[in-house]
């Protein structure tokens, strides 16, 4: 049996218009990043990334830099290089998010990122939001996109409202937050033993699409999936970050450059931590209108490549365009 010879082309210089960013949580308690496997998922539909990757849209001014250092051991007279060694591995990446949302704000700010809980009547004013209206319990059968609640609890909710769904803080220390390690609690006293603290920092947020007689329908699925039995829902007004805080966000990242000939370049950073605080970039739209974009700067942290045990900061993959000579 034989097949017809294919028509092939010689490689061309990749041309791309833009870069798309995807992020996924790192399990901080277990030290487990989300690993992207380009051999299995490299050609994924950009509009529908594989779970648990979260699409953060097209980004601007994507720039990555290797800070790795190679030094030579010189011997003899005159000295000549005998051997080279890698003295340091390091890498940074920076870009601008074009949209403001919970995750892009948190990544840009770098430290704890808080939800502005709908304030309780008479609560004392506070820069990162005051005490919230009491959370409402969920009933059995809730899913990632629908929250079952008692009828009496629905009065405080309406379509178009933002909500956070997470467990009460119960005095634990360490990383907290469902789906994403949102903050690190050093002691119960440091967070005033506040039952709302986890919901204040949680990434498990969504927009309410409709209020039915039996609960809330969400316009987007919760990041942590179906709520656990001990979770509660609380209304939020927006988000806040701050210059300060000791916590470092850490996320797994994937950046994709789609080429004009069908090729694809992928950059996978299993562990990224921020290198700066909250910062915006203003760009002229049509005077005096300006775009306000989120500047994000990261340092890559190492992982061990399971194939050979080597440390790595970033994986760059290239999927050639079809029928191109290698």
């Amino acid at each position, binding site marked *: 049996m034989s097949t017809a010879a294919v028509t092939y082309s010689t490689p061309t210089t990749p041309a791309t*218009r*833009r870069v798309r960013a995807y992020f996924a949580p790192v399990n901080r308690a277990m030290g487990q990043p989300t690993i992207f496997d380009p051999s299995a998922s490299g050609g994924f539909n950009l509009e529908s990334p594989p779970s648990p990757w979260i699409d953060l*849209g*097209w980004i*601007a001014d994507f720039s990555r830099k290797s800070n790795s250092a190679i030094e030579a051991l010189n011997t003899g007279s005159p000295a000549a290089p005998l051997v080279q060694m890698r003295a340091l591995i390091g890498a940074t990446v920076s870009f601008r998010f*074009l*949209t403001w949302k919970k995750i892009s704000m948190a990544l840009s700010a770098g430290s704890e990122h808080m939800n502005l809980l709908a304030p309780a009547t008479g609560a004392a004013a506070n820069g990162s939001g005051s005490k919230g209206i009491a959370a409402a319990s969920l009933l059995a059968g809730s899913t990632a996109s629908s929250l079952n609640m008692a009828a009496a609890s629905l009065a405080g909710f309406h379509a178009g409202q933002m909500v956070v769904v997470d467990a009460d803080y119960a005095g634990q220390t360490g990383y907290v937050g469902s789906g994403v390690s949102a903050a690190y609690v050093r002691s119960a006293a440091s967070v005033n033993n506040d039952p709302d603290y986890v919901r204040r920092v949680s990434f498990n947020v969504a927009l309410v699409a409709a209020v039915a007689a039996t609960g809330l329908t969400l316009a987007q699925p919760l990041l942590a999936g179906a709520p656990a039995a001990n979770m509660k829902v609380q209304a939020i007004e927006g988000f806040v970050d701050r210059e300060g805080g000791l916590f470092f966000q850490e996320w797994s990242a994937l950046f994709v450059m789609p080429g004009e000939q069908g090729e694809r370049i992928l950059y996978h950073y299993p562990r990224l931590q921020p290198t700066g605080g909250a910062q915006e970039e203003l760009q002229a*739209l*049509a*005077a*005096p*209108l300006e775009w306000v974009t989120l500047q994000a700067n990261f340092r890559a942290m190492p992982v061990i490549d399971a194939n050979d045990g080597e440390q790595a900061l970033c994986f760059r993959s290239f999927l050639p365009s079809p029928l191109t000579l290698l």
Partner: protein
Amino acid sequence: MQNAKDTFYVALRNRLATVNPNRTMLLRGAQRPSILVEEAEAVVAMLPADTFVLRWTGLTTDTNLPLTLAKMECEMHYTTGGTAAAFGLDRGRALEEMDAEVIGLLTPRSTPKMDYATNPVTQLTTAVFWTAATFMPAATVRDRLTRYAKVAVFAYQEQGEL
């Protein structure tokens, strides 16, 4: 982009009814505020006097966003010969009055986007917004003073919009 153009026109028309309730015209049998969209009316040889005529010209889009952003250039043309009672000697004042009305019509510089092709009219989820007017030099043609102001109108293309 049509929803954005319709929304911009209706917003300005409604505002004109407040800014200057006396600036009205009779068009196709209906008395209404003196503002029209040139491409939606019969072709005429010259601009109607004391009326704002919206002319849509340039269009650019930015597709590097979750929703495509359209930037549409709109020219607001207007011409006046002043009043007959003053034998046209007040045409400068009349033009200045229309200049001031342009500023009033464009303030505030945003409005919720509507779909006027549905019955009843439906409100979409984004807003149409625009720049301040850039006024071009006035021109004299016979007994009339004419000017136009340029405005950049921005609107996001929502899912399902044409």
